[in-house]
């Protein structure tokens, strides 16, 4: 009859964005969870948000503060958009004030936390609270003699709250992001469940992460997940790799905006695919993106373009020179251009803002031009996490995504970006310069197309006032991909005309 026989433990969704994904549903219901972190890691916000999210869902909460006074705390939380004073009035939020006394305290003999236990119990009973946050036990312990003797008292409190049916969150300070779980060894007395918040410097950039160290007898995602603290929202966890890519693949084709390229890809890109566009500077990446967007708008798709490298004006001007009017598309409501400055914030924050923009606009097509701008300002690990997050975000929304990557050398070569994200992409298009008897030509190759036959020849293309104009395959030239170009006999090229572009070939991955 036990409800835990299948390993599933009843959960209480915290309502903290992203956290419930890595917690496989939320905190163990009716239990105590310890949230450990160094000073400034976001513990108090986490504890307060646990209550705030509950209150928004119609629950009630009790906040026990040992550090800041209730007045200070309410004032600080107002910056995050939480009106604690109003919640206090309505009875949704109750403080138990345990902030330090102004008067001096002497200790004569043994004591316990009996009064605290009674006050907490009363607050929970009176308000009907289902959520309790205690912040932080260290602030209490550090002002008492022999704190280790009080750990058993915490266990008493935690047990009493469990009997009241409350789900409890206790914060504890750590001295080191990668040291012992908490000072005074509190965790063994309080919690079967431990969550760690970290705030580290990595490559001179601040990186906040959350890790579920243990949930006794319950499933959870392992490892550190980046989070950010946003105004009006509080903590937002980016589950990234925890997001599953289990969506069914779409077989619906969408136009690349270039008729001949649609033919080369066996009918166009797939509706929910991620297309990586790689090429050296000036090979036509932004042009291909422009066609992708224009093709979308022509088909009535909502398109969103994140511009990391060029300003809005530049993009509009470029598109115009290729015969596409971005401004008119924006006026029609089918295009939104969002310029982004890669240096402005950490990658996690970029991803978050992109997510909000996508959630709000609900586009069918998203283009990111270019990823290389991001790669330059971050660590490889963060970059890969960003790509995972972006990919799953697009897949979840069944959005066609085109991302561009700048190859470092003019002829041939792969960018670092490509190397690290190619497995995440469904389609890879290569744009290359091809040196041919003193002329520099441009070539395009569909390198990979998951789940579809595609043409496997490198096609020459030119750029004019209508944009990309696809030409013949480079039949007699080899070494284009590696950049070591050799040419066959010129006659071979003469023999080719009339035969037309190569047929479609299935290429093994």
């Amino acid at each position: 009859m036990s409800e835990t026989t299948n390993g599933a433990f009843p959960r209480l969704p915290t309502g903290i964005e992203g956290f419930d994904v890595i917690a496989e549903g939320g905190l163990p219901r009716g239990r105590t969870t310890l949230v450990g972190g160094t000073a400034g890691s976001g513990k108090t916000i986490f504890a307060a948000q646990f209550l705030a999210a509950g209150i928004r869902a119609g629950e009630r909460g009790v906040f026990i503060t040992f550090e800041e006074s209730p007045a200070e705390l309410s004032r600080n939380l107002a910056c995050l958009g939480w009106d604690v004073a109003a919640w206090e009035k309505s009875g949704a939020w109750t403080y138990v004030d345990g902030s330090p006394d102004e008067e001096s305290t002497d200790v004569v003999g043994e004591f316990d936390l009996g009064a605290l236990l009674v006050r907490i119990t009363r607050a929970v009973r009176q308000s009907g609270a289902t959520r309790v946050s205690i912040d932080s036990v260290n602030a209490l312990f550090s002002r008492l003699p022999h704190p280790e003797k009080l750990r058993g008292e915490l266990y008493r409190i935690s047990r009493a709250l469990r009997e009241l049916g409350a789900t409890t969150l206790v914060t504890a300070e750590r001295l080191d992001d990668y040291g012992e779980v908490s000072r005074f060894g509190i965790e063994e007395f309080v919690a079967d469940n431990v969550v760690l918040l970290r705030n580290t410097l990595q490559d001179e950039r601040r990186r906040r992460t959350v890790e579920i160290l243990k949930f006794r007898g319950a499933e959870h995602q392992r490892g550190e997940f980046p989070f950010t603290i946003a105004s009006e929202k509080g903590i937002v966890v980016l589950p990234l790799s925890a997001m599953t890519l289990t969506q069914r693949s779409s077989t619906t084709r969408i136009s690349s905006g270039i008729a001949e390229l649609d033919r080369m890809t066996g009918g166009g890109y797939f509706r929910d695919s991620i297309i990586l566009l790689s090429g050296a500077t000036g090979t036509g990446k932004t042009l291909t993106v422009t066609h992708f967007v224009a093709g979308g708008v022509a088909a009535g798709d909502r398109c969103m373009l994140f511009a990391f490298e060029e300003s809005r004006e530049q993009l509009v001007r470029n598109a115009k020179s290729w015969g596409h009017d971005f401004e008119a598309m924006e006026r029609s409501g089918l295009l939104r251009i969002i310029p982004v400055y890669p240096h402005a914030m950490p990658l996690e924050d970029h991803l978050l803002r992109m997510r909000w923009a996508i959630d709000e606009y609900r586009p069918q097509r998203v283009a990111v031009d270019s990823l290389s701008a991001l790669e330059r300002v971050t660590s490889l690990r963060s970059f890969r996490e960003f790509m995972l997050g972006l990919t799953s975000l697009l897949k979840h929304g069944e959005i066609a995504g085109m991302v561009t990557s700048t190859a470092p050398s003019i002829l041939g070569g792969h960018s670092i970006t490509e190397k690290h994200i190619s497995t995440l992409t469904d389609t890879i298009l290569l744009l290359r310069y091809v040196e041919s008897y003193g002329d520099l030509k441009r070539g395009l190759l569909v390198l990979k197309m998951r789940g579809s036959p595609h043409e496997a020849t490198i096609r020459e293309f030119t750029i004019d006032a209508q944009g990309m104009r696809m030409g013949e395959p480079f039949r007699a030239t080899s070494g284009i991909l590696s950049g070591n170009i050799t040419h066959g006999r010129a006659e071979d090229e003469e023999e080719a005309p009339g035969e037309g572009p190569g047929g479609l070939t299935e290429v093994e991955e």
Partner: protein
Amino acid sequence: MTVRLVLYVAGDTPRSRSARATVAWLAGGGVDEHVEAQVVDVAEEPERADADRVLLTPTLLRLVPAPPRRVVGDLGDRARVAEALGLSAVQHSRNHDPR
């Protein structure tokens, strides 16, 4: 001058009993000031513990004279309790020792 004290205890425990005994001693002429003491069981009057922001039990609170002072613990060492409250104990009781 009258010294006013409140003792907060949680239930009937050895600690509570020890603290109650010390407070009874204080109020019963154990020190050289007139002491009025009240004992509050937090389980029965939790709202008073809230108002005085009491966390630990036993807690002895000196309300008068200002500024307030707190002594926590079982209060077994009476001399130290008296000292913490700014009262003198032993001297006084010896002077008045009936012969």
